[in-house]
């Protein structure tokens, strides 16, 4: 008998690096609702808008359900045999470095562990890298250089404890909303907390800031060099700490002083007002509890590692590391970037935070694994890996749970590489991505809600991600697929795990193996958990050892570091500007997240309300540049570089610096004709971390004058609309497309019929000048699609039309439909501001007219901003500009 009763499971959110606890309510093998897990220390019951929509994204639509070879469904056996045969042959003929794994910060620690062990210990290559390379490898490298280990010293409680919070290269309000909200509450409780945002853009995060310093793109290290130099000048150094716990201080200071001897020079390097710089430096100097919260704006740079060390230098020089409210704090982007690092998921790491450069470490890992063929040197980092693939040095790549054809820089190169690669294996949960399109073998993998294992968040907290839904089709867990593969390669004994708990146990034992306090990562106290103990594992911060069985909130409070000398290192940082200088007429393109989307949208684009917030690729442009280029908000704008083109809607914004542009990273070939912004980003990487410079790329900008623009709503998905430009949004029912054409108007009626789903029941509006065309098709009286195009004037707002798909319409309604507007009844509520409660701008403005004059009163009236709070900065802006 079917069990229809509801149950609930505690698990961890699959989105950002905050790692929030989620309570999932399940009925009949369906996730019916999610809420924040009040017992989870990361979020204490709160969820952001993306997390709140998780239940809208778990449908099986679009899932990869069966193994495929060259697009044909095959059995698991055939698929794996093909992969094994090719890998074995290539390894045999060309050596282990002719193959590679490319992993994801989204997969679980246990998956990562197996992949890493197989490649580094058994195949004998270190060619296993991950998309975390794009996210935080500079932070890792910076920490390793300074602390001798990849250790995040701080914890989230420090947000409550700090008196000064400096956010650098972080739009936490959108990228890490729960931490941002935590800081908001901390500041509400203690209004004298100072919050400073260092960002070329005025982002939503600045809403909270006492001061926003819009520094020149990429100039961050100059600012922190200037700070170090100022601290010395102002006698604000912790001389005792430097003397007892640090090394390299003099060289670091000398270098800082050489570049940034005074405030004026520093301000000039950074394009800032010296008074602002002085204000910040004075604050930092006199505030013991200073927390520097940094993220991708620092990491995604050709000098990201130096930037991280410039920050850490200042904290070391003031003795502010790992103390309550006082620390450098790198926040990761992905849910399990940290877990991946812990098991050695990066090409330049071993496992359990051990290093290739350390012979003891190599021996330790090899012994523990009883590895027959231990890799002896670091492998290829992401960008190098795909270049090696294109050269033919790497002949087979297995991509797990990520979309490098979109997310890596110079995506045209990545695509070329994958096309040339002898064997591209992709394990994914989604069938159609820009990367699966280039795969030879597709392997269906389980996804969040099905997978079972652990993840580690940005504060070193290991949490369980629990499986509670049955996998659809023939999807299998990544660790199972890898173990099966390993067994077929002849390594069955070393990969005989029956359960993720078995893998976790081995991982925990390795972390303690020959450790004795010599390595930061030690969770030996979590070894030998029973399955039920593993299942019940509560969130806990590593290290977890016999000495600290309840975990460890902060690191390095004792001033002992994992360098050979036990002292932290300050590094002399020669601050550098972005590697690709702008030529005349170029703009600096910054890339990043938009509020409600995640990565390449394979999950978030399935939730219509997450797309309401912004539904097309866009480009933020400063008012000055827009005026000079005669670009208006809503115009289509083309950015080009590296022979690639990105097209988005202009958003003219006072928040953008002249000369700088911003574009979101999410769109790709599945969702837009020219939406993959990373195609414009040159594959320039940080020499230490290998992390690409995704934040500052020179591009050309051109305001486009489309011959026509249009909109299409269709019940059936249209894979590739026939227009020059398109972008796609998933609706509750069906899809919506924005369209534009740059060449001559088509012969509308024939053209539309040539690529839209056929119907014998068609209504049309024709214009003898062909400036306008509108049509709709019906199937059994129900609206199948509606198409509206115009060479002049505006298109109707899409909100109402979206609600009409699939409806049976009366004669009057059919004509009304082509008007694009409802005849009466519910008014169009404008652009959605609050995704959680679906509150639109018009309703908000109406409520403001009726007297609501604060975020609180708007919340009372409309509920907007009362759930995840992500929209509060926008609500404030509406109130401010009312």
């Amino acid at each position, binding site marked *: 008998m079917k069990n229809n009763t509801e149950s609930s499971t505690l698990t961890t959110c699959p989105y950002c690096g905050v790692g929030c606890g989620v309570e999932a309510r399940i009925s009949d093998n369906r996730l019916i609702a999610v809420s924040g897990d009040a017992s989870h220390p990361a979020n204490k019951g709160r969820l952001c808008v993306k997390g709140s929509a998780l239940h809208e994204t778990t449908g099986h639509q679009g899932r990869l359900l069966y193994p495929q070879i060259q697009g044909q469904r095959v059995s698991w056996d055939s698929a794996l045999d093909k992969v094994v045969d090719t890998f074995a042959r290539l390894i045999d003929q060309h050596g282990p470095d002719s193959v590679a794994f490319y992993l994801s910060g989204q997969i679980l620690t246990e998956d990562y562990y197996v992949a890493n062990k197989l490649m580094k210990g058994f195949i004998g290559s270190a060619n296993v890298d991950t998309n975390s390379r794009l996210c935080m490898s500079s932070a890792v490298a910076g920490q390793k250089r300074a602390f001798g280990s990849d250790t995040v010293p701080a914890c989230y409680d420090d947000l409550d404890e700090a008196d000064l919070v400096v956010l650098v290269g972080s739009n936490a309000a959108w990228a890490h909303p729960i931490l941002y909200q935590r800081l908001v509450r901390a500041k509400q409780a203690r209004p004298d907390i100072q919050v400073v945002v260092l960002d070329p853009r005025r982002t939503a995060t600045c809403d909270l800031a006492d001061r926003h310093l819009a520094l020149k793109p990429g100039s961050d290290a100059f600012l922190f060099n200037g700070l170090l130099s100022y601290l010395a000048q102002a006698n604000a150094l912790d001389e005792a700490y430097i003397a007892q716990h640090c090394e390299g201080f003099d060289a670091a200071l000398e270098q800082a002083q050489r570049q940034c001897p005074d405030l004026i020079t520093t301000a000039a390097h950074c394009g800032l007002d010296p008074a602002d710089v002085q204000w910040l430096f004075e604050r930092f100097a006199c505030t013991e509890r200073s927390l520097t919260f940094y993220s991708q704006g620092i990491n995604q740079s050709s000098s990201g590692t130096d930037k991280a060390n410039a920050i850490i230098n200042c904290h070391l020089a003031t003795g502010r590391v790992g103390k309550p409210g006082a620390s450098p704090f790198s926040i990761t982007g992905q849910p399990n970037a940290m877990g991946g690092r812990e098991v050695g998921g990066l090409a330049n790491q071993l496992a359990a935070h051990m290093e290739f450069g350390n012979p003891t470490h190599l021996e330790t890992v090899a012994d523990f694994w009883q590895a027959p063929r231990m890799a002896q040197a670091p492998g290829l980092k992401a960008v190098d890996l795909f270049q090696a693939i294109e050269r033919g040095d790497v002949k087979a790549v297995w991509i797990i749970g990520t979309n490098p054809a979109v997310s890596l820089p110079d995506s045209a190169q990545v695509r070329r590489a994958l096309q040339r690669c002898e064997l591209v294996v992709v394990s994914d949960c989604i069938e159609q991505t820009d990367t699966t399109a280039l795969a030879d073998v597709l392997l269906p993998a389980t996804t969040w809600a099905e997978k079972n294992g652990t993840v580690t968040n940005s504060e070193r907290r290991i949490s369980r991600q629990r499986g509670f839904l049955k996998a659809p089709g023939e999807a299998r867990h990544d660790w199972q697929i890898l173990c099966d593969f390993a067994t077929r390669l002849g390594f069955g004994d070393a990969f005989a795990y029956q359960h993720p708990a078995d893998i976790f146990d081995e991982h925990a034992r390795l972390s303690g193996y020959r450790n004795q306090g010599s390595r930061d990562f030690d969770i030996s106290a979590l070894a030998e958990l029973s399955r039920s103990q593993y299942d019940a594992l509560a969130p806990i911060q590593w290290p977890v050892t016999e000495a600290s069985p309840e975990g460890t909130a902060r690191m390095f409070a004792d001033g002992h570091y994992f360098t050979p000398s036990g002292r932290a290192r300050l590094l002399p940082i020669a601050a550098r500007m972005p590697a690709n200088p702008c030529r005349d007429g170029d703009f600096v393109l910054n890339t990043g997240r938009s509020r409600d989307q995640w990565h390449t949208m394979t999950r978030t684009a399935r939730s219509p309300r997450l797309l309401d917030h912004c539904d097309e690729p866009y480009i933020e442009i400063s008012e000055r540049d827009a005026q000079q280029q005669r670009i208006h908000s809503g115009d289509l704008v083309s950015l080009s570089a590296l022979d690639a083109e990105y097209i988005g809607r202009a958003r003219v914004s006072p928040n953008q610096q002249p000369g700088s542009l911003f574009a979101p990273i999410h769109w790709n070939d599945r969702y837009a004709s020219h939406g993959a912004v990373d195609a414009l980003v040159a594959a320039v990487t940080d020499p230490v971390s290998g992390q690409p410079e995704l934040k500052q790329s020179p591009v050309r900008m051109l305001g486009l004058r489309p011959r026509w623009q249009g909109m299409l709503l269709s019940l059936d998905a249209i894979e590739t609309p026939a227009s020059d430009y398109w972008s796609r949004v998933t609706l509750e029912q069906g899809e919506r497309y924005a369209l534009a054409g740059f060449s001559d108007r088509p012969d509308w009626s024939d053209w539309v019929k040539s690529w839209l789903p056929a119907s014998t029941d068609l209504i049309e509006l*024709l214009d003898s000048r062909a400036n306008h065309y509108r049509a709709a098709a019906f199937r059994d009286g129900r609206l199948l699609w509606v198409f509206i195009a115009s060479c002049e004037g505006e298109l109707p707002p899409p909100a109402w039309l979206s609600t009409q798909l699939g409806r049976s319409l009366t004669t009057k309604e059919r004509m009304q439909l082509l008007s694009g507007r409802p005849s009466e009844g519910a008014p169009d509520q404008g652009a959605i501001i609050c995704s959680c409660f679906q509150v639109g701008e018009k309703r908000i403005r109406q409520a403001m007219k009726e007297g609501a004059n604060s975020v609180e009163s708007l919340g009372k009236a409309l509920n907007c901003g009362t759930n995840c709070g992500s929209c509060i900065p926008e609500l404030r802006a509406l109130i401010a500009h009312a």
Partner: protein
Amino acid sequence: MEQQKLVIIGNGMATSRLLDELLSRGASSYQITVFGEEPGGAYNRIQLSPLLAGETDRKSIQLKTAAWYKNHAIRLHSGDAVVQIDRAQRRVISQNGRVCDYDQLILATGSRPARIAAANQALAGIYDFRTEQDVEQIITQGACSREALVVGGGLLGLEAAHALAKKGLKVTLIHRGDWLMNRQLDACAGELLRAELAARGIRFVLGDEISHFEGETVLQAAVLKSGTRLNAQLAVIATGITPNCTLARAAGLDCDRGLQVDDLLRSSDATISALGECIEHRGRTFGLVAPIWEQARLLADRLVRGLATPYRDAPVPTKLKVSGINLFSAGEYLDAPELDSLTFSDPHSGVYRKLLLRNNRLVGAVLYGDAQDGHWYFELIQRQDDLSDLKPALMFGRPECSDDNPSLPATLAIQEIAV
């Protein structure tokens, strides 16, 4: 003061309206005499189609009873046509020999059915569709016929065909034009109309006309120019109307297509005025009631109050219901190179719209199936506002446009409009 003698020739709808207008102004200075060719008081000619279809009766379409004329001291000579106007003597002479002097004479002689060129039209069973008497004869003949022909694909012909089909006759409509109602609709709307009526059992022969009728004394068949032979026991000729100005012409008044009148509706003889379907004003003749009502109003103003307001021809929309199908046509209705058009078509629901613009000003509208916004378009045609910003919202009627452009008319004085 001695009463002036006002004589009105013709007792149709125009006269009926003129009498109302005169009386409402207190026409006590006139002694009014009306001559009517048809028996009885005035009736609503527009209602002849429903009468034929059996949807109404004679009593219901009566506009004025004999008693009404009596009560208002109007002398009515019905069934007695005037045969001569003696302008020199200012008198008229009727068929029955009545001689009646006038100080002011009004001609409201209406129109005659247009003739067709077919041979052998004198056979029994061939009728016009113009008078109550025609309707009675058609009904009588229809009762003993199986097959009927209707000649003319204008409004009247379509309604006759619809009415006969409803009575169970096998009806074929023959139309010279390439599509139905080709004076009001474009080809697309005409085709929609054809398809809809064909679905109700009426057969259509378009682009053809009758060469001759066959039969000894009674109609048996018609042969078309294309050679097609159609059996029929009943034929209704409804190919339109021509102004009836036989009398005026005989009296030496200036006539062209119709009796020519000036802006004060005076003929070439200042004591003789005219209105309605018989006149030609600045080259235009009339078939719809709205302008005729206006003529009646101005004429009464002049006769009773001495006001000399010139009559100005205004465009008139055709809004009508053919056999339950709503149609509207105003202004231009055919595509032309210098015109822009917007069209909406929903063949499945039988809805079609075409708007014609010249220099972004609306100059014509054809609505089929849903005529709701017709009046609004009509007003836009008269206003000649620049509508560049309203393309293509214009297509969806006033509510869609008034949001964008509040200056556009939101309401409109609705005119009673019919053929």
